[in-house]
């Protein structure tokens, strides 16, 4: 384990008034891995995700990207410096906009004076939808996001992140709104992404899902990391016990 981590934070703390959301947390994401971030409600998982994506700034602690100490305090910095993209359960997509416009939201391809190159964006969208993802049931990138199922939406959001060469996907409860089959598909997709050098952090309450895809488990409780083991060194019972014990 001597390789350089994509992302690492050390001794990170975050306080909201009296509440300590993160208490001296160490966390890292290496190349080619899927990390399961587990814990009960209020354990600090979401705060950690928000901090990594730059939405929340830590009070104390250090952040390293590719081994170099860095400061990430905005969403844009986490995207540009660390290549982080967050996928929420009702992900960062607009229902009333087409797939194309969603894929290129905020990163529109323009021709002149900021006018969009629709043709190019459509061609690239087709490419995105066809590459690796195999999002079934989407016949045209001109479809509105609102017409897609939950799983298809997730897939579009993930495909978008991959297309823009993100290195780390933060999936916050990605499957809680999905059907069983869609969940399978999204999880399979996450594991496949490792081959494209995209690492993921999956936050979930469903330990079976976590066991299906994750290589390493990190359990949080009351803002602290209380358990961390590789999949090969542990089993479902042990992880479950760690999550439910207070």
């Amino acid at each position, binding site marked *: 384990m001597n390789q350089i981590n994509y992302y690492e934070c050390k001794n990170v703390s975050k306080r909201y008034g009296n509440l300590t959301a993160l208490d001296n947390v160490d966390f890292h994401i290496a190349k080619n891995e899927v990390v399961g971030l587990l814990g009960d409600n209020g354990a600090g998982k979401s705060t950690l995700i928000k901090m990594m994506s730059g939405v929340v700034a830590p009070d104390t602690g250090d952040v390293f990207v590719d081994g170099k100490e860095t400061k990430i305090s905005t*969403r*844009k910095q986490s995207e540009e410096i660390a290549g982080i993209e967050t996928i929420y359960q009702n992900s960062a997509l*607009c229902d*009333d*906009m087409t797939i194309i*416009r969603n894929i290129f*939201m*905020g990163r529109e391809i*323009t021709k002149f004076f900021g006018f*969009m190159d629709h043709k190019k964006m459509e061609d690239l969208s087709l490419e995105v939808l066809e590459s690796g993802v195999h999002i079934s049931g989407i016949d045209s990138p001109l479809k509105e996001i609102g017409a897609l199922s939950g799983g298809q939406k997730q897939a579009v959001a993930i495909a978008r992140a991959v297309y823009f060469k993100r290195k780390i996907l933060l999936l916050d409860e990605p499957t809680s709104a999905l059907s069983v089959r869609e969940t399978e598909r999204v999880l399979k997709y996450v594991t496949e992404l490792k081959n494209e050098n995209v690492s993921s952090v999956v936050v979930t309450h469903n330990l079976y899902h976590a066991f299906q895809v994750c290589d390493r488990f990190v359990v949080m409780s009351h803002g602290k990391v209380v358990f961390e083991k590789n999949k090969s060194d542990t089993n479902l019972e042990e992880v479950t016990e760690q999550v439910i014990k207070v």
Partner: protein
Amino acid sequence: MKNLFDNIRSKPAGGILILFCTIQIVAILGGLLYPEHFRYLNPANIAVLLKSMSPLGIMAIGVGVLMISGEFDLSVGTLYTFCAIVTATMVKEYTLSPYLAMLVGIIVGIIAGLIHGNIVNRFTIPSFIVTLGAMLLWKGGTLLYHGAKSLRYKYESETYKTVLTGDIGVVDASFLWFIGVGIVFYFIVHHHKIGNHFFAVGGNPEAAIAIGINPKRVKLIAFAIAGGCAALSGVVAMSRVGSVQPGGGLGLELEAIAACVIGGCALMGGRGSIIGIMLGTALIYTIQDLLLLLRAPGFYFEMFVGGLIVLAVIINVTIRKRI
């Protein structure tokens, strides 16, 4: 054929387009069948119809862009009057050329919009409240600046007169201004990247933030557009009529919102189109015109607009559900 129909239905303006075409076909048939009693196709009628819709239309385009971004502007009605009076005073008191005065008026409108937007952004209060206050502020401001007398708009430029009040056949210059503003904003909203940002910020602000769009900046631009359009519509209306009433304009803001809603804009943002807003405006005036031609009592006109708003939204929602 079915595909084409589905395509029309899926557009924000789809419902309104179908409704608009149906009403036009019925009215044109009526006009052809009973040319003596129902003068819809009479050139004078068409001229009046086209002439009347421009001020509301230009204002509604600005209001619609802001609505797509998820905010309201209730102050556009009184701002419309304020900017027109500023323009007229520039010509009268400071002997500015009417073109420059028009520019000053529009800049005042844009600055007002920027002020509204800044307050909404900085204090994160609903734009409904901020612009409700601004509505009264600009109304009072108009009285403070000019007083309660109506103001005649006099200028010495034949070209300006032609450009703003001339006509080509039945088509009035102010209608061409409306179409021109519509074309400009069609390209901005549907083909420029800032347009994509309007939809993103209005449709899912969190998504916009997550993707790195700054919603405050985008909204500020939309507020400026609403203010600028209100000012332009005030100047166009005043130039055509030749005078401006300090109390006028009040109530137009709600009609503008009505035109947007009829045209398929979502009240909470993220959905809408320029063509829809233009059709919404046209539909309000077409209905008004039809009622007058049918000799319906003009006093009750607003009742029908009220019904039309609800009906149009029902049609929009029903048509979308069926896709």
